[in-house]
């Protein structure tokens, strides 16, 4: 039965049909599926399936990424308060767009997916100063700083990831906090993440969730 719900939910997400996806969740709960199972056996596998479809180049569009994250986020917000016990948090991250960058879609997709994976996300918003990224990461004991940049000059600029890396180095935080980047310039130049001093990059918001959880594991190891 769980498998059937997972398949119906995933189909609705791929059809970008939010109402149908939420209906599948409601039906699942009515049939006795627990809120924990809804999140971990339906929503998270659907995100992972989307990741697989992307990696196999099956033509998943930006709108489908957006809807997968949006629906996941809504379902998780609704389910977590109903959990029998508070879920175990996988890790903490801070996320924002690089200084001078006002494009927030990517980070919203990342945050939605990470929430479903039980990663606590502090969204610092748009046009974030490098010092703020680091200060907030320290204050929240975050394992990862995620920086989104959609423009070449904000991706490569001296007040983006480069400066975050420099501050982490100056403050001796490089082992404790990892840096992930994403956005169009990184897709067009897959080596750019190294140039700007990031530890990892992701091609899109959905796969960013996997990249970031891998970095969290690396820090916690």
């Amino acid at each position: 039965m769980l498998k059937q719900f997972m398949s119906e939910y995933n189909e609705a997400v791929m059809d970008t049909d939010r109402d149908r996806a939420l209906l599948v969740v409601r039906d699942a709960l009515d049939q006795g599926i627990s809120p924990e199972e809804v999140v971990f056996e339906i929503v998270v596998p659907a995100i992972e399936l989307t990741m697989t479809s992307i990696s196999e180049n099956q033509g998943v569009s930006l709108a489908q990424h957006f809807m997968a994250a949006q629906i996941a986020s809504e379902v998780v917000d609704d389910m977590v308060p109903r959990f029998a016990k508070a879920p175990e948090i996988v890790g903490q991250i801070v996320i924002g767009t690089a200084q001078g960058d006002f494009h927030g879609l990517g980070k919203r997709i990342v945050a939605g997916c990470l929430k479903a994976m039980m990663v606590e996300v502090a969204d610092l918003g748009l046009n974030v100063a490098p010092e703020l990224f680091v200060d907030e990461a320290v204050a929240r004991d975050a394992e990862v700083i995620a920086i989104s940049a959609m423009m070449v000059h904000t991706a490569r600029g001296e007040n983006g990831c480069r400066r975050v890396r420099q501050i982490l180095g100056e403050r001796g935080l490089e082992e404790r906090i990892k840096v992930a980047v994403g956005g169009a310039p990184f897709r067009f130049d897959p080596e750019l993440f190294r140039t700007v001093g990031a530890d990892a990059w992701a091609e899109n918001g959905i796969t960013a969730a996997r990249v970031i959880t891998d970095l969290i594991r690396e820090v916690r190891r």
Partner: protein
Amino acid sequence: MMTGMERLVAAINGTPADRIPVFCNLLDQGAKELGLSLEEYYASGEHVAEAQLRMREKYGYDCLWSLFYVGKEAELLGCRKMIYAKDGPPNVGEMVIRNYDDIARLQIPDDIASHPAFAEELKCLRMLKEEGGGKYPICAYLTASMTLPAILMGIEKWLQLLMMGPADLRDELLAKCSDFFQKQVAAYRAAGADVLVYSNPFGSTDFIPRKFFNELSLPWMERDLGPGGTTGIVYYCGSARFNDVIEAVIDRLGIGVFYLSPMDDIVEGKRLVAGRGLTCGVINDIMLIDWTRDQVRAEVKRIIEAGKPGGKFLFGTLVMPFAIPEENIRTMLEAAYEFGRFDTK
């Protein structure tokens, strides 16, 4: 020697030419050319025209641009704040649509040509026409109705409305954006623009699922282009791929120029266009920042070898990042002229 306009016309018609046309989209570089900050530079249509003419002369490519920056359209629709950087294009600093109620309040100017926010572009177009008209195609950039809301309300809110919001509100906004497009394209044509780059990332299945493309993008593109027709219109989806919709675009819209994504397969693109139009092979210009001379030449050669056989092909760039060294711009162009030459024997 042929002019840029003659090369473009020859490429469209598939008639003999000395080489393929080469379009190099230098925008922010104009400020560097005139020794101005980007904010000073974009404040004047005369600056933009002067720099466009100088850069074309200096590098020898085949087009002239009237585009200042993409956010200009938001200014025509009420945005009063742009945020300038020192090394990249300005950002829209104030969303014209902040909530759904603003959609009803959105006013489309009756006469774009007399709108104060269009005055500098008009000056620029007049100068370009005077100096380069007929010799070099003058390019204008227009955002499709499906994409314009992303500039007016931010892409997050637009996707939210598009995918989950009330359909009547979505359609009200799209109708206004389509009305704006129709007026804008008429204003550009009247002011002398020859090439009208119709920018629509939402016309790519990288952005929206095929079902949405068929049910929404295509009908709204038909509405955009209906009154003015497709003369001079270039299908362009930003950097998004669109090989898989070429057939539908030809069939339903009748567009005849395709400015591919650097990620599109050029051979496949040409096969799909099948002689019914001009295919433009586009270089991944972000890589031009760091590539060596040999890498630049190898990539230009690859693109041209893929697209040149059989003609009806143009070599082009996206919006060239400010950080590309001048030497690499020259290397790319010299390679394009060299590999793009037709054997006249």
